[in-house]
């Protein structure tokens, strides 16, 4: 429940209901699909039904003849348009040229082959059905381990080993770690392909204005500025003549941290036909052609002493890349490597990542992007080690945590953890759930033959992306504070929130700093013609990078306000507080609003001061921020059916300071749902021919209300020293913490049967088979 807002009291830290919501709850928000432009045409894309095939011919004559069809384009028509951009680089990375329409070959089901443009979307759909493509089907390969096997079909014939890259990272002395080890535990752990499934699919409206040589492109994206830079390059239009607008965006979760073929394609079409054109992705297309997440096969080896001290961790990571690289595809598994040590104090790691092409849609950033896989890996390995040593999973974690006096803590993977008290967070979670008592209940349940499990996950993550050297396009963020002559405040943020709530939390911050009402503040984002260059929204960075940018811009405003205050109050002894400059000698006051007016009328100016009241700040973080937490799940497995019941879920997250705890809770809940989705239900399954077998909501199990447990949320607070707000970021925390807690819980339940490990998702049948195999 939100508290209501009154001015003067500080707003940061309060549960304030969102400024975004009135338009969203009344159905008056504008998403891409809601945009209608005069003369607008509609595009429907013809896509490959095959995982791998040569295109022998495309016959568009019937489609082109259909009344209402304005144009049909195929791969032959798009010469001159740049290919889809991959922004990541690794030594020796093989980058296939990724045309916006297939040329002579298709590489995955859904690969765009042709596009039909018509006056009406129904006609465009009819036209797409009339395009005849002659395919010569070839053998596909969809399993990354099969793709690496000798004699596997080559996804790209020029690289018969299907390897896009091999990335190695070592830290410490692994040979010594394994020589010193008294116990080594090995396990193959997969992180299955997931379909992000933002509820709003992607969509684009492109509008070329020939007279201006300019393109306006409305697109459902998390990165409008990066999209503009990339699209300008692909289409050969001056960057300042491309306007990208991310209107209301209906969820992204990383899937819209990308610039897709369709965005350039619509720009190309609008320019060709001289009309605006709209493309709205169907859900089926969203399953088939918007990036997937995860897609790991991991081989872990953990070395330890018998007392539970972890000495080192080895990882061989086979990343299913899909057929192409999207914006960040090859970089994602390297994030897994960075976070492979988790919250633990060992200094020896050895990782090999094999980026593998398959005839599937590319994988890329999906909520957590590499860190959920890493956390699942280390948290499973710690539990397996605990089981091997007959130790309590909580005890082994306490024993290995990085300690509070070790920060900043340099990890074996080259990171520098900013701050934390991992033990305190776990202890709080254990106390909240009543751990000792639960273990007694579990012992009693086991005597009755019931399969009760208690699963712990203590996760860490790197977020607040990030220092620029670690982020391909720059890791800073921008903010502009524009005080209008009336004293009303307009904020421009370079982040591109789409549900996270920065229109509210940034207004809270600004209201506190400037002493104005939240109602007097408007936060704008997502339009490159209005907002100074920004990086966008991903990697839990809105508050942790965009927030400090705003904070510093506000400080500049306050400085200038004070200058005007001093001038108007004719005193050097002036403070600016609660929206007023006050002379500490005379007690005279002048309001923020009066000062704003004076700054624009400029009848008189303070020394060395320009008129106006606007400040822009580009802020570069010196480090990532590292939130952490402890999630504990109690479950019971039905021996007869393998069905899993979640009895309790306690989440204690430490994300540093919180601007708005109501919004933080929402992020944790949503993250937990996606994490449980991976643990229990969701799986993007390709068959050997490249067909996505779970390519609709009919087959792909999304978390629904009745499937979700009540999540008991609480927090510890360790401010981050990286930024002046002390915030860390919460966008991905729930997703990262929940998955291993769930799987560890089920594995704990099954432990009396001698079952060590099962791969996700833990479907009832998989669990049932394991129970029967063990019996």
């Amino acid at each position, binding site marked *: 429940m939100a508290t209501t807002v009154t001015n003067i009291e500080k707003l940061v830290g309060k549960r304030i209901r969102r400024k975004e919501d009135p338009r969203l709850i009344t159905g008056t928000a504008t998403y891409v699909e809601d945009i209608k432009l005069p003369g607008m045409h509609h595009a429907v894309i013809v896509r490959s039904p095959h995982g791998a095939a040569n295109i022998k011919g495309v016959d568009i004559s019937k489609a082109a003849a259909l009344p209402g069809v304005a144009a049909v384009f195929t791969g032959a028509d798009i010469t001159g348009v740049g290919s889809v951009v991959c922004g990541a680089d690794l030594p020796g990375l093989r980058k296939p040229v990724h045309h916006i329409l297939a040329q002579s070959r298709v590489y995955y089901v859904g690969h765009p082959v042709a596009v039909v443009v018509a006056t009406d*979307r*129904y006609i465009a*759909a*009819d036209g797409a*059905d009339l395009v005849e493509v002659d395919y010569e089907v070839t053998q596909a390969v969809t399993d990354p381990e099969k793709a690496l096997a000798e004699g596997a079909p080559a996804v790209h014939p020029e690289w018969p080993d299907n390897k896009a890259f091999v990335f190695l990272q070592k830290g410490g002395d692994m040979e010594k770690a394994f020589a010193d080890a008294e116990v080594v535990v090995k396990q193959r752990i997969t992180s299955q392909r997931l379909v992000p499934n933002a509820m709003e699919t992607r969509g684009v409206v492109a509008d070329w204005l020939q007279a201006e040589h300019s393109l306006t492109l409305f697109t459902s994206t998390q990165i409008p500025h990066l999209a503009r830079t990339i699209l300008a390059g692909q289409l050969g239009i001056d960057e300042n003549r491309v306007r990208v607008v991310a209107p209301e965006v209906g969820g992204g979760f990383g899937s819209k941290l990308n610039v897709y073929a369709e965005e350039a394609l619509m720009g190309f079409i609008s320019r060709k036909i001289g009309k605006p054109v709209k493309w709205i992705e*169907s*859900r*089926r297309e969203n399953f088939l052609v918007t990036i997937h997440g995860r897609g790991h096969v991991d081989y872990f080896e953990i070395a330890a002493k018998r007392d539970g001290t972890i000495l080192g961790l080895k990882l061989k990571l086979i990343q299913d890349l899909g057929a192409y690289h999207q914006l960040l595809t090859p970089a994602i598994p390297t994030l897994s490597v960075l976070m492979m040590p988790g919250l633990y104090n060992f200094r020896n790691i050895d990782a090999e990542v094999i980026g593998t092409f398959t005839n599937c849609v590319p994988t890329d950033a999906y909520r957590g992007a590499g860190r959920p896989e890493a956390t699942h890996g280390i948290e499973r390995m710690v539990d397996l080690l605990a089981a091997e040593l007959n130790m309590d999973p909580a005890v082994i974690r306490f024993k290995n945590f990085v300690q509070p006096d070790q920060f900043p803590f340099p990890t074996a993977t080259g990171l520098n953890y900013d701050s934390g008290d991992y033990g305190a967070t776990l202890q709080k979670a254990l106390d909240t759930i009543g751990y000792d008592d639960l273990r007694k209940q579990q012992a009693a349940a086991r005597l009755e033959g019931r399969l009760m499990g208690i699963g712990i996950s203590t996760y860490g993550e790197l977020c607040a992306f990030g220092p620029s050297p670690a982020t391909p396009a720059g890791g800073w963020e921008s903010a502009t504070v524009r005080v209008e002559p009336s004293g009303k405040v307009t904020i421009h943020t370079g982040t591109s929130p789409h549900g996270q709530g920065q229109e509210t939390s940034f207004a809270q911050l600004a209201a506190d700093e400037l002493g104005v009402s939240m109602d007097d503040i408007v936060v704008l984002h997502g339009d490159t013609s209005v907002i100074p260059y920004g990086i966008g929204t991903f990697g839990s960075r809105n508050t942790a990078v965009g927030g400090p940018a705003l904070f510093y811009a506000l400080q500049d405003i306050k400085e200038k306000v004070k200058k005007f205050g001093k001038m108007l109050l004719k005193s050097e002894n002036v403070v600016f507080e609660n929206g007023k400059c006050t002379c500490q000698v005379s007690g005279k006051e002048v309001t923020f609003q009066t000062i704003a007016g004076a700054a624009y009328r400029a009848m008189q100016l303070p020394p060395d001061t320009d008129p106006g009241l606007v400040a822009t700040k580009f802020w570069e973080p010196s480090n990532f921020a590292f939130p952490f937490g402890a999630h504990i799940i109690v479950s019971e497995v039905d021996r*007869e*059916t393998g069905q899993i019941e979640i009895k309790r879920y306690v989440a204690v997250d430490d994300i540093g300071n919180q601007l708005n705890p109501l919004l933080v809770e929402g992020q944790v809940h949503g993250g937990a749902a996606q994490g449980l989705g991976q643990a229990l*239900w969701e*799986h993007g*399954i390709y068959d050997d021919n490249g067909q996505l*077998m*779970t390519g609709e*909501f*009919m*087959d*792909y*199990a*999304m978390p629904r209300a009745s*499937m979700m447990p009540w999540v008991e949320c609480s927090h510890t607070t360790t401010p981050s020293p990286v930024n002046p707000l002390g915030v860390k970021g919460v966008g991905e925390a729930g997703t990262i913490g929940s998955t291993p807690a769930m799987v560890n819980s089920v594995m704990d339940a099954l432990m009396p049967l001698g079952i060590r490990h099962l791969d996700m998702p833990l*479907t*009832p*049948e998989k669990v*049932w*088979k394991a129970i029967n195999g063990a019996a």
Partner: protein
Amino acid sequence: MIANAFEYTAPQSLDEALGLIAGGAKPLSGGMSLIPMMKLRLAAPEHLVDLARLKELNYIREENGELHIGAAVTHYEVESSPLLLGKCPLLAETAAHIGDIQVRNMGTLGGSVAHADPASDYPAALQALEAGIVLRSAGGARTVSAKDFFIDTFTTALEPGEIVSEIVVPVEPGLTGTSYQKCKHQASGFAVVGIAVRARRENGVVSLIRVGVTGLSGSSYRAENVEAALQGVEPTGEAIRAAAGLVAHSVDASADMQASSEYRKHLASVYTAKAIHAALSRSA
């Protein structure tokens, strides 16, 4: 996601509708199955005849010891009908398991039965209830038993030109207990298996038992071997377990990503036992 073009008629009477259907038009009722298939262009009927609002198909009434339910009655109406809740709670309970609120508000009993999706819920109940299904065409009407109606996946006893117009269920004395137990597909909500049981216990033994099965195979069926194993028997836990274990005997069980045929058969026996227990516990 855009259907092929078609012609649409909202007839004024059942006779008009049947005339059009005799001419090859396809009946549309709630559309919960047909419209998604049309949008995916897996179905492309040329002419739809909308039965949903025909008064002649919208009724639930009791006559001569039988309940008569018109085909265009929605799942929500079945689920919430005081008459059915009182006199045929199994059908109401089963309807409440279908899809979701919105689907139950639109989807109709007749439409669902005629579509004969092997994972739909009603067939289990209709088998257990030994319901009659009235099939009507321009030429007249006939009644077939649920057992004879459901033949295979999307295949029924319907002849060209016929529609399902009514479901007939005999009203039973209050002694009988019923239950529908469903293992829900995690993605679609359809039945992985669904078991409907109608049973009566008298003098400590099972005096009546009917078991209807859906989801397990291409068609719903009556598990007569389970029924035979319990008829006249004291329903101990062991007896029920043993009888339920027969439910999938010699059945060619379906397999999909949610459940292999082996697991599906196992689930069928587990849910059969659950449904028998629940039905008997409700038997007076």
